[in-house]
């Protein structure tokens, strides 16, 4: 009987017509549990951090110094590129192209990471009440992080670009004129980049950006990843290409939700 109920629930969830019922239930559960899990984390995490900190004090101090040096270098680069970014923004506005820097963002803190062993997702402490809606892109740590797939009143779940259900339209090469699709292959694995013709000239380490296509699911020109490996597949017109995300998805603490809704 319960097996039958479970199968029925799965069928309901998979059907788009009844999906909103399960989404509503999930949203309520998140709102009810969020203060509870947050409270437990507030109590238990400092205890764990205290022990971890006392054991690793020396390495943390060294890491802190390295981070300070990195912040200094990044501040310098930021100041140098400010003028260039302004020029790009002006050019994009002339072309009527959306520019990431011109879009409103909501900064959110990550509260949970990979709820299931088979998903690549994170939970944020901001939800619909802060303007975070399903479909909005999430950026952080220098690149695209993922997309909001569930939003309750006070929390949101973001599907990372490494999740096997994630698919991002990318562009690269001279003038970003070559288009492809980057698909996740699970947590910790490089993304698979598909539909690249066999004769395409590729460079290891070259950047790939969102292309703004696919009904504008993502704004264009957000760095997604860097080319990791490529090889021609015998007997195929396409190449086998992988890409590593620009953003360090294992070390996310704060991210920005871009208030951009796909034109579906």
């Amino acid at each position, binding site marked *: 009987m319960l097996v039958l109920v479970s199968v029925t629930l799965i069928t309901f969830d998979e059907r788009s017509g009844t999906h909103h019922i399960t989404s509503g239930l999930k949203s309520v559960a998140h709102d009810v549990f969020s203060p509870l899990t947050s409270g437990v984390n507030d109590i238990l995490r400092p205890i764990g951090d205290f022990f971890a900190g006392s054991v690793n004090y020396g390495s943390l101090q060294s890491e802190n110094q390295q981070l300070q040096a990195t912040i200094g270098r990044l501040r310098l680069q930021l100041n140098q590129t400010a003028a260039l970014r302004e020029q790009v923004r002006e050019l994009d506005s002339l072309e009527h192209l959306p520019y990431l820097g011109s879009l409103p963002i909501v900064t959110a803190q990550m509260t949970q990471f990979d*709820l299931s062993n088979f998903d690549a997702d994170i939970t944020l402490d901001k939800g619909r009440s802060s303007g975070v809606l399903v479909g909005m892109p999430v950026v952080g740590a220098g690149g695209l992080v993922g997309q909001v797939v569930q939003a309750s009143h006070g929390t949101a779940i973001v599907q990372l670009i490494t999740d096997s259900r994630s698919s991002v339209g990318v562009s690269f090469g001279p003038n970003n004129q070559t288009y492809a699709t980057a698909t996740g292959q*699970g947590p910790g*694995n490089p993304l698979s980049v598909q539909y690249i013709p066999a004769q395409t000239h590729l460079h290891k380490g070259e950047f790939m950006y969102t292309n703004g296509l696919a009904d504008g699911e993502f704004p264009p020109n957000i760095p997604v990843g860097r080319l990791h490996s490529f090889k021609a597949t015998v007997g195929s017109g396409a190449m086998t290409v992988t890409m590593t995300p620009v953003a360090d998805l294992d070390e996310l603490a704060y991210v920005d939700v871009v208030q951009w809704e796909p034109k579906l």
Partner: protein
Amino acid sequence: MRGKEAPRALLVLLVVLVLQLTVVLDIRIGGAHPDLILGLAIAAGLAGGTERGAIVGFLSGLALDLFLTTPFGLSALVGTGVGVAAGQLVAAGVDRTNWLFVPGVAALGSAIGVIMFAVLGAVLGQPDTLTVGLGAAVGVVTVVNGILGYLLVRACNWAFGQERSGSAWQGPLVAGDRH
């Protein structure tokens, strides 16, 4: 479930769910984290038999499904399956006097549960569940539930009003046991 069983079982489920969504998520070995919800379903089957195992497995899985992006009902299906299987094992009269019985069943049941979840996930559109991280997930969930199996069975014994059992791992006779 009768009398005080339902509220006690719900309390145990709530505590395990909160632990799963907080402390357990911070424990990562090889990229995988433990799954206490699966362990609870198996423990309920061992402590309470087939019917209680099915109910607790279903409800705990359903509660977890509320927080996952995988298809709603998938964890409930797996929880029901392992809860029933553990209950059937007890009902079949398997020798439970050996101290390895509970950890062994918890570990084996967990491995089967994780693989079942991955296979069903692949059938429902996540083909990578069968390859990416499956080994680590099976390993971590199996070992942790094997270690905590005895503790989870004790919690279920308390929930089912069987806390006065003579032997911690042997447990009391449950509905469906051979007398």
